[in-house]
């Protein structure tokens, strides 16, 4: 690591102030992405602003038609939460499929979606469940949030405060994990929400996206059979050491099918 200054503010206002004063400052959540990057000397922040002392960022609450999860809530806490398990079991399962126990004990919802790694799981839930991202400045609809490879709608000095997940009628997540890292090679969230049927795909493209062909097909008939004829276009999909774009295209169909069959389709 390069040298940096460490801050542990206790309010969001202080965070904003420190960020405003230091161009090269970075927010530190669980450190699961940021610290390895710094250790490998691929990032050189001048300042780290640790969010762990700020009240209210680690809460999970049931707001009636939605559940709201603070940015600093760890994956293990989402996985183990009664509230989440009751309202959106698919989300608890998704959290429980992330990485390994150490990562789940440190990694956070806010860190995950701020980073928007193309292979991360939460974006599929955020998009698939039509969640709303609350920041220190505004609310962002899921459909407007994921912009590209490691790119989101967050502006400079804007930070995720919480995510509001509307309770779906039903939802299921199916993931094909990378055997080495356990990140998603492909993950698909299928959900019936108040705003309609949504199918969100992570792992396959530059960032999470909605698979509109699958949504249309399932809209006609919610069954695995409906997926049979659909073949995904591999052209824009990720192609790397772990999976070719062709294989990823195929896995989208398989994972969507698994989620659908979990939901009885």
């Amino acid at each position, binding site marked *: *690591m390069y040298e940096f200054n460490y801050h542990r503010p206790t309010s969001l206002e202080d965070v904003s102030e420190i960020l405003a004063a230091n161009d090269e400052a970075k927010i530190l959540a669980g450190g699961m992405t940021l610290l390895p990057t710094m250790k*490998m*000397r691929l990032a050189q922040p001048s300042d780290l602003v640790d969010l762990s002392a700020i009240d209210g960022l680690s809460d999970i609450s049931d707001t009636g038609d939605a559940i709201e999860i603070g940015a600093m809530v760890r994956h293990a806490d989402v996985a183990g939460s009664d509230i989440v398990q009751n309202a959106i079991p698919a989300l608890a399962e998704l959290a429980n499929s992330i990485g390994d126990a150490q990562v789940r004990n440190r990694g956070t919802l806010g860190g995950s979606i701020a980073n928007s790694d193309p292979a991360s799981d939460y974006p599929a839930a955020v998009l698939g469940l039509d969640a709303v991202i609350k920041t220190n400045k505004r609310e962002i609809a899921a459909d407007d949030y994921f912009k590209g490879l490691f790119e989101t709608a967050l502006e400079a000095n804007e930070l995720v405060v919480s995510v509001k997940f509307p309770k779906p009628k039903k939802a299921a997540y199916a993931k*094909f994990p990378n055997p080495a*890292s356990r*990140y998603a090679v492909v993950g698909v969230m299928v959900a019936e929400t108040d705003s309609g049927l949504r199918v969100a795909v992570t792992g396959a493209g530059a960032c999470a996206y909605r698979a509109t062909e699958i949504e249309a097909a399932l809209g006609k008939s919610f069954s695995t059979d409906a997926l049979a004829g659909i073949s995904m276009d591999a052209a824009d999909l990720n192609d790397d050491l*772990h999976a070719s774009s062709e*294989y990823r295209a*195929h896995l989208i169909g398989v994972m969507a099918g698994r989620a659908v069959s979990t939901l009885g389709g």
Partner: protein
Amino acid sequence: MTENGIGAAVRRKEDHRFITGKGQYVDDINRPNQLYAVILRSPLAHGKIKSLETDAAKAAPGVVAVFTGADMAAAGVGGLPCGWGITSSDGSPMAEPGHPPLAVDVVHHVGDQVAVVLAETKAAARDAVELIEVDYDDLPAVASLDAAGAEGAPLVWDDAPGNICFDWEIGDAAATDAAFAKAAQVVSIDIVNNRLIANAMEPRAAIGDYDSGKDEYTLFTTSQNPHVIRMLMGAFVLGIPEHKLRVVSPDVGGGFGSKIFHYAEEAIVTWASKQVDRPVKWTADRSESFISDAHGRDHVSHAELALSEDGEFLGLRVDTRANLGAYLSTFGPAVPTILYATLLAGTYKTPAIHARVRGMFTHTVPVDAYRGAGRPEASYLLERLVDRAAKVTGIDPIELRRRNFIKPDEFPYQTPVALEYDIGDYDAAVDKALELADYDNFAQRREESASRGKLRGVGIATYIEACGIAPSNVAGALGARAGLYEAGTVRVNPTGSVSVFTGSHSHGQGHETTFAQLVTEALGVDFDNVSIVHGDTAKVPFGMGTYGSRSAAVGGVALMNALEKIRTKSRKIAAHLLEASAEDIEFKDGKLTVVGTDRSVAFGDVAMAAYVPHNYPLDTLEPGLEETAFYDPKNFTFPAGCHICEVEIDPDTGVVDVVSFTAADDFGRIINPMIVEGQVHGGVTQGIGQALYEQCVYDDSGQLLSGSMMDYCLPRADNLPNFAVTTNVTPCTHNVLGVKGCGEAGAIGTPPAVINAVVNALSEYKIDDMPMPATPERVWQAIQSATN
């Protein structure tokens, strides 16, 4: 059986300190006034160093010194030596390029050492390393065997045309041709043995500590064989005589072969320590391990088997190219030759065998021994070929193997590829494995899997390996540049406790337990009153260390021989104390008794008499009770066995799940069954890793793509079933313990069993080939190609 003696499943003495975090690994050691070394490594696979500017680094805060290859060369530092010479078929010696610890002028692989920074802290050294400016001419590189062998390929070394290090052969080419000429059928196969990275849990580390007062050096290093390092580094690289150089390998967290070799960093820290007159510590981080620890395997082979009408093997012809990397690692050339091609007979009576092996240079990390070293490559090739032969001939794969096994009454058996097997019973191992695997009911299980949409397959492999390379004179004739004996000293302390000093080195194998069991067995001394000392050239006699499953078969036997000397001398002392003749003294259960009487002395009293020789035959016997034995075995030992794997494949994704794994192994006599089982579990896990998960990938320019745990997939507990393991014992005929060795067997028999199972599972698609690792995508692609 003596309590805690041979055959007892005694819990490991060493585990208390490991489990409670009290192990002392090299990185746990800190010397007063120590500096930290960080090494600048080449980012290029092949490049000419046009300029190397270190002034800014030298001026950086906390930096004490910066050294380059030019500095070491100017000081007369030698190159890292190769410990095994191979002679090509035409009689010429192998190409043996120089290997300076820090590169001079040209870098030859990503990770090649370029310069070293010594600083007060590791962070300061890391910061400063980035200030070194190197201007390279990027030269064309070859990263694979195919690229290295291509017409007009760039050369790794000018004096190795065609990038060939050696072109070696073994066996009788004419007899093999004749066998093929009369064959009823010929089966062939193309085999790639995938390149692996050992990834021991503990990264390598080294501390050089020069004492200017005494002009003596100590090197603490993560080595499997401290005496070998002392000899190689002292004599060939730094010119330090043995009595001035102490090498200590304390607790070492796994080696799997990768810590046998003498590495540049050991020489760098030892040499640098003298330059600055301060201790110098270097510890690899994981990323560094990936590009600086020797890699394993990486063979490409074509093999043909000639069979008679009824499936008798008549001849075997093998052509192998082996990737040696950019430089010759310590035993690199021995692995694809002496440790590989000599095993091509396997468990079979193939009368004529010929193998040609070309060792090739590439711009990659040096390749050397990794768990099994050559033998996994041989067993994989042979057992895939035999399975294919079964398919082609229509003979059941188990029946085909049985038909060709060397039978128990045919030992000793001289193979056509140099080895003489002493003993074995391959049918018995197969019988045991089949039973334990419930092989007869496989069809039912396959149906049950099919009802869930899964493809189930079963694969069998037999294997043989050769452990404890020996005898030294034969190894020498085959190119070894060192002896291959082992040494053990038994020091009985005055009150009867025992300290053992062994040249073997434990880095996970449990010697502190198994060797203590031997002492308990031989002397009747309580297990807790024995301690095993290893890993320090200042304490233990000159020994060759631990690799090739040699510790019990060579080190254990040396210890037994020293114990026998103790027993003999103890009888003489007891004879004096009991006023009897030594021939009449029986030494049993810690007591020395005059045969046929109740007159006896305890072993502890004998020990006391030896050190307080008031009542002692001083005119005929030296006082003290300490004996050393050096043991050079008459032959290799030949563990063998049968592994059976069952897999279930998800045809939608190609995921292969190992649902059961059975190993029936013949390791000769077993000292500690629990430890043996653990060794098998570890070996099988690494074998499954090679077969399904692990793959070292370089791109065409020689960049390592699988350079982290995020990309290089090691098997984890949730990838594995519970293993069913058993043993079948035929005791080794030529050592007093009857032991053969068990450390590598799992990694040798497993890969072909797994891949045979995968191919079997895919049989409905007529797929008869599957490269390792059988990743989900590869399996899925194979199914796609077969169905489209």
